[in-house]
């Protein structure tokens, strides 16, 4: 089976800092993969490489088997790589609806009424229809996060890259987002999800990847990975040093 998105030997260096060190990563169609790891492990950088915002010094990224290492973020989005930022980045001067229309008409490559229909559907699905005509800059954090997710979905992605969308939310709010992500997964879209709140993550993902200092240190069944001694060391420090 062709993977929907994969990276081979990805290396990124910022000056003297090796942020990614020969990482291999793959996600299958419809699969949900969680990424955990301490701060500075290279998680967000990896997402940036997969989305095309950062070009790796070494390694290749492939989307459905095609080499996209040198493909721009906007092209990757139109191919089917959706992305939600860690800190939501709404277009503040536009309404919630207009934010989603941009995503549907460009990322989703839909024209006119079909783009509007897609935007209306997604807003309804994400519980934003009631506030669709408000300026995005007036939204609170939960609504901003939902808008971030809605825009990403409006591009009709085959894989979505989620970066800590649960951060800063209460447990109840996070639970709402989990439902939303589960819904995306049920629709057959693959998911790559970075999250610090591990108990939230394991409710949805099929597979868990743990990163530390630019490398993948564990990859497999979520329960197994969380029991892995190396993973516990990375998070809590070594028991014997």
């Amino acid at each position: 089976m062709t993977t929907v998105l994969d990276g081979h030997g990805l290396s990124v260096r910022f000056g003297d800092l090796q942020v990614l060190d020969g990482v291999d990563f793959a996600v299958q169609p419809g699969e949900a993969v969680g990424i955990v790891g301490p701060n500075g492990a290279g998680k967000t950088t990896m997402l940036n490489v997969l989305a095309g915002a950062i070009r790796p010094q070494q390694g290749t990224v492939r989307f459905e088997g095609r080499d996209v290492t040198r493909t721009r973020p906007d092209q990757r989005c139109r191919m089917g790589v959706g992305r939600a930022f860690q800190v939501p980045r709404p277009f503040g001067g536009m309404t919630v609806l207009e934010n989603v229309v941009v995503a549907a008409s460009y990322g989703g490559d839909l024209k006119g009424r079909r783009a509007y229909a897609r935007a209306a559907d997604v807003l309804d699905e994400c519980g934003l229809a009631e506030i669709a005509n408000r300026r995005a800059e007036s939204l609170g954090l939960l609504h901003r996060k939902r808008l971030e997710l809605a825009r990403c979905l409006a591009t009709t992605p085959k894989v979505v890259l989620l970066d800590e969308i649960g951060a800063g939310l209460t447990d109840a709010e996070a639970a709402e987002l989990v439902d939303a992500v589960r819904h995306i997964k049920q629709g057959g879209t693959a998911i790559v999800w970075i999250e610090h709140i591990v108990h939230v993550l394991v409710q949805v993902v099929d597979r868990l990847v743990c990163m530390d200092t630019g490398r993948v240190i564990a990859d497999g069944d979520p329960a197994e990975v969380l029991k892995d001694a190396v993973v516990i060391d990375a998070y809590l420090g070594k028991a014997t040093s």
Partner: protein
Amino acid sequence: MSERWTVIRSGTPTRISASVLVVVGIAMFGVPFAFRTDIVQQLTTLCTLLIMAMMWNVLAGYGGLVSVGQQAFIGFGAYATIFLTQRDVPAYLAIVLAAVASGILAIALAPLLLRLRGGQFAVGTWVVAEALALLVALDEELGGGTGVSLRGLNAITPDWRRAYTYWLTLAFTLLLLTLVFLLLRRRSGAAIRAIRDDEEAAASLGVRVKPLKFMLFVLAGFGCGAAGALTLANTLFIQPQSIFGVQWSAYMLFMVLVGGIGTYEGPILGAILFFLLQDWFAQYGAWYLIGLGVVAIAFALFLPRGLWSLADDRLPFRLLPVGYALRPAR
């Protein structure tokens, strides 16, 4: 379409207001038949200011490209007109060709200038303007530093000349208003406003940022070139120091900020307000400039979204069908 919600672009009030604006625009062609020529000339000035404000808004308000060098195109448009009339091209045709030439200049400069960001872009455009001013000042054929008159309009009686110039200026104004409207009405409108708010996020949603910015830059080059050529036709004399002067950028910035940056209507209001201020306070010399500065600072502090935001927040509908609204489906 979603079963419960539907997207609409315009309601009846918007259709009525848009029709009224179109009728007013066309009716403006009748002004020379009903008013004195000094009023016609003043309206020509207002229209050129409006073009400049609109074009600066296209760049900074929609593209996030803050230019302090649009006078490069204003000056180029004016001097291209001189250059063409010296080669026996009829003056009014020369104005149109000069505007097109300014658009071509923008195409040529885009690969260089659009690589620059933020403050670099602002300074880069200014450098281009100063370089062009120097080149023109060194060219004796174009009048050098002392300036040059537009010939070829002497054959027409002053009243008709002013009327013709006004009609051409109005035609350019309406053409550019229509182009910007179409840009906003189509899906590119949502995309350029997205680029204005967050370029990287726009790209992550599939927006091709570079071609859109290129289009805005070329449109602004064309429009500012037209404004420069029309300013020459209105005043009949130019000097490189003034037509390439950075004061044009200050005026454009003022009009757009005071009217409402990133809105269609804002620059129109800003141009009208600036025109009136210029008319009322020009006799006070330096105090006039200080007054402009005070007004600009007051707007930045107390009404950062400009005059238009006052109306926009209160009107239950939009004047033009460029927005989107979600309504429950029937």
